[in-house]
């Protein structure tokens, strides 16, 4: 695993394990011992664990460090966002690493979920599960990585609150505006610290958990737009909360309709079209949302500037906050892959917005948004005239076509040491030092921009001198900062016979 790693089978399996471990921990809290739901959750966890083990050539280790989850040295970025609370719970239970050996039983998993759910002191081993056999290395994070961590945490918390809000809403309880305000404020602070990076974070998208990620992304984009408009911090937060809750009504739409790859029938379409009304209802029902821009945003974000959208408003255009969020909503929606269509490039998404100006969107907002994300939108993958592939990380107000980029692949398509380049730089003769020659489809290089962003790779000026490491396989040079906490095991295994990989290691992954 080098600078950047495409989603391998092992990483996907690890994501599934995290998801099911979360689920099993929740189920444990909800149901008594022996309850079929608990048993089913553990069985499900076991099966995904098997898949993880099958996709690794040695015993896989999942690390917890800095409230993030790792498989070996690879950050499970999206899972860290999605299952932030699990990471916190594991840390609270003193778990830094879980090594999944052979012979794990359902009882072992039951016990593990107990430890996590109750924050109980964790023994060194839970049956076949080794706890903290390999420990992550303590590192001093560089400033940018700390900032990244903060942003990621803010994003995670927002995702978390949104999910809880969704659960509350669907169970008939009131949405928690105060919690939403708190997390959006945190997110707003981080985005305010570095708007470019905040925008970059919206490249994080999830096909599986589309609605929640989408809502948080729209929240981030709305915050950035609000700052661009020059709103004060309270207004920005209110707009961000509106962005966060804009699709809350979709939580009541059946998943088979939302994800239907087929053409919707009239009734299904009616249900979809009702989600703004439902969302506004959920927000109004809180009482505290009555005088909050979020309700207007939820109700009006599809109503269209020229009033041709849905629902039809009585004798008026959508409110200005709703117009801002409508643009952010469209941009994020069309750049996400859905079951019924492929993701559009961020550049093409801008084209959609521009074409929709005066109709779906307020043209002033479209122009602002275009300016904000740049001619090559932040998060786009581009080819440079050097043949390298780079990610656009910062727009350039002066020349939208010459943003700041970070190189990620060299001209042979090999992951490279990232380097920040301002494309405004010129040579002595005044000619540009670098130029963008083409937009690049990330899928062509199997690049997940979101992963790159979350893993901090796009900001890395040089490889970390130390950091979270996996243990070296025999013959492999130990990474800087590596601490061998179980030399005896190495010795023991080496006496057993030749091993391609150390069984305690978060092994290289098989695809």
């Amino acid at each position, binding site marked *: 695993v080098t600078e950047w790693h495409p989603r391998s089978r092992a990483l996907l399996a690890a994501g599934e394990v995290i998801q099911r471990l979360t689920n099993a921990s929740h189920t444990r809290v909800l149901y008594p011992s022996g309850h079929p739901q608990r048993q089913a959750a553990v069985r499900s966890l076991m099966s995904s664990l098997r898949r993880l083990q099958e996709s690794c050539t040695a015993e896989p280790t999942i690390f917890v460090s800095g409230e993030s989850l790792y498989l070996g040295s690879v950050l499970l970025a999206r899972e860290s966002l999605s299952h932030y609370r699990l990471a916190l719970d594991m840390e609270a239970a003193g778990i830094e690493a879980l090594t999944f050996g052979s012979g794990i039983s359902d009882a072992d998993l039951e016990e593990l979920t107990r430890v996590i759910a109750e924050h109980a002191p964790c023994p060194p081993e839970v049956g076949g599960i080794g706890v903290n056999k390999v420990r992550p290395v303590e590192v001093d994070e560089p400033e940018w990585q700390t900032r990244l961590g903060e942003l990621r945490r803010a994003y995670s918390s927002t995702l978390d609150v949104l999910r809880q809000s969704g659960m509350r809403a669907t169970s008939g309880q009131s949405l928690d505006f105060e919690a939403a305000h708190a997390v959006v404020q945190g997110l707003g602070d981080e985005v305010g610290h570095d708007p470019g990076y905040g925008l970059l974070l919206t490249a994080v998208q999830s096909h599986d958990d589309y609605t929640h990620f989408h809502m948080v992304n729209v929240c981030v984009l709305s915050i950035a737009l609000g700052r*661009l*408009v*020059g*709103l*004060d911090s309270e*207004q920005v937060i*209110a707009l961000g909360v509106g962005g966060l809750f804009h699709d809350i009504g979709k939580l009541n739409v059946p998943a088979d309709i939302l994800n239907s790859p087929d053409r919707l029938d009239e009734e299904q379409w009616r249900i979809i079209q009702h989600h703004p*009304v*439902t969302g*506004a*209802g*959920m927000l*109004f*029902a*809180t*009482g505290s949302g*009555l*005088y*909050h*821009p979020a*309700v*207007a945003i939820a*109700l*009006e974000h599809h109503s269209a500037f*020229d009033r041709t959208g849905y*629902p039809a*408003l*009585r004798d*008026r255009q959508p*409110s*200005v*906050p709703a117009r*801002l969020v409508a643009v952010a909503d469209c941009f994020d929606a069309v750049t996400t892959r859905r079951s019924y269509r492929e993701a559009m490039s961020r*550049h*093409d998404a*801008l*084209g959609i917005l*521009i*074409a929709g*100006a*005066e*109709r779906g969107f307020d*043209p*002033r*907002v*479209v*122009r*602002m948004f*275009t*300016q904000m994300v740049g*001619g*090559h939108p932040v998060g786009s993958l581009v080819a440079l005239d050097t043949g390298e592939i780079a990610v656009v990380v910062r727009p350039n107000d002066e020349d*939208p*076509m*010459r943003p700041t980029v970070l190189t990620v692949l060299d001209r042979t398509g090999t992951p490279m040491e990232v380097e920040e380049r301002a494309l405004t730089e010129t040579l002595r003769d005044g000619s540009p030092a670098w*130029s*963008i*020659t*083409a*937009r690049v489809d990330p899928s062509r290089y199997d690049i997940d921009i979101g992963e790159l962003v979350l893993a901090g790779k796009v900001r890395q000026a040089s490889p970390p001198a130390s950091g979270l490491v996996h243990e070296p396989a025999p013959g492999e040079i130990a990474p800087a900062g590596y601490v061998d906490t179980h030399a005896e095991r190495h010795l023991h295994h080496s006496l057993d016979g030749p091993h391609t990989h150390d069984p305690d290691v978060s092994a290289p992954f098989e695809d």
Partner: protein
Amino acid sequence: MTGSEVRRDQADLARLVRHLSAGLSLWRLYPGQSQRSDVSTAIELTQQAASDVLGHGPARIDVRPAGLFVDEEPMPTSVHNERLARALYDRRISHLDIIDHPTAPDIQVLLEVMTQPVGELDDAGGAGDVLSEAGVTGIVLWAGEPEPLLAMRGEHDELKTRERDHKQPTIPPVDLSAATTGGDMYRMLTEHAQHLPEDEADRAEFHRRAQEAVAALPLAERAEFGRQVLRNAVSESFAERYVGQLTDPRLAQLAVEVAEAEGSDPEELAAKIVEQAGRHSAVVRLVSAAVRRHQDEVEGDEDADAGGDGAALPVEDPQLAAATIALHHSVMRGAAPAVGGHRPGGPVLDTPIAVGPDVQAVRAAYPTTTEDVRVVSLDALRDYLDLEDDLPQLAAVAAALGERLRRACIDLQQGEVRLLIDTVEQVLPHLSAAAADIVVDSCNAVVDSMLATELAGSVVTGGELDDVVAVLRPLGPQAVEAVVAALADEDRSPFRRVHVSLLAAIAGPYADVLTPWLQDPRWYVVRNIATALGRIGGNDVVDPLLRLGRHADERVRREASRSLIAAVGARGVTTLTMRARHGDEETFELIVETLGSLPATDAAQAIAELVGSAPSRPAARQALETLGGHDSPAATELLREIAAGRRAAGIGWLARARARRLARSRGGRQ
């Protein structure tokens, strides 16, 4: 060296095509502006790419219906190839040779030629000739079959002297003359367009004939045809191809013609076209650009022409991407006047994206004050209540709304109470009966005796009564009911006083809400209501108060009497007189007593009048006595007139004698 022997690098050729295509887009946007950095960059890149190509020897690109080919191999499909192929093909170019290093001016001329209207090029002898006559020899455009690609410039010059005729397309004859109306023409062309021949030359020929046929239609029919094309284009590609082929750049003229035929305003019509054809973004772009161009022509503002022969497609090159954005931007600006937006002055393309004014405008329109946010929210609430068909959800919202109303009352937020009530009242007529009931019930439910007691408490502890009145008044009869209910159960006299005062202030229009409480078995409740009625005053309370004159409890009767006096005031004399004449003896006596307590002269006069219509002698006597004790100086003369028989003629002599005595006894009060 023959064409097949020429080594060429596909990648270099692809780059050349890309840069040339990008250059074309920019040139369309900024014709002749070679000094612009983006244009000059595109030219430089094209020049460089051509030199790279020539590094492998002369090269030829074939233009075919399926796209661009090199050495019989199709070039990799891309939007650049398609665009360049289309541009070349429209100008009847079958091959493009690169035989020598082009200069920047050469590239400029090439771009100029490639952006010239086809008709003009034809008139000038074709694109190849125009290019050649402009002195460009490094790049050659061929129409029809070219000579083999032999060598560099010298040999080519010789070849170039052999001019080729354009290929003559051959397509089956299509009798478009059968279409005499715009609608027929549209249907016919649409049908044919679905089954056009493969050969691009034939297709182009078909469209040329179609244009001629359309042009031959009468104005009104041509207008109808234009409408059909713009409104019924069956697909994006159809719209782009057909609108582009047939009406652009004459689209604006078409809009004007349609407007003339319809007798409508051209700008309004353009707006309609944009709106109705809006589902096809290409049509929008074309119409917008054309309308703006037309307006520019009308205004003589040549500088503002953003050009654009439409067909702005997603692109990859930065220059082309910039051009696309600029084009979109200009189209947005261009569309603005057509759809009622603003039209900024000056050349819009100098600053590709002008953000400053937009930010200011959005900020100015953004709801930043509490009041602004309220307006936005209540607009949303109105629409929400109107739109929601999920009654349980509506009930939850209505409950929250009610709670908010309650909170606003307790916090004495008069404005908010008014706003909430106004919102509900505005939306109620639009709701179904069930939904309206839910909303009304939810609002009513929170205005109860507890709320009234809480509000009264605020006054008792030093608050202003007027503040409470201001929040209760918009709540109408529900507030009256709440206060009276609180009053009925209140055992603290300071609170009761406040309740009565509140009723006096808010219950005027809703006296009917109070009157049922006069049947309450608790005498003190009835007495308090009577007090309130008296302070409310007005004719409506007279009857209830008069009826209280028969209440079993004397304390109530006394209060009713006082309240009646308070209620009618000086202006109620006539009313009371009327009621006394038509009422029973008790009512008569009560009214006489009431009038006796009024110092005004008209009250004395009323008593004098009533003496004659008293229901009994005792009643008449009571009236005379009351008049004798009246404070008005006029009472003495009135008594004298009664004594003299000039008033109350029907009374007996004993009564007149009593009047005389009473007058004499008032002697000093005249």
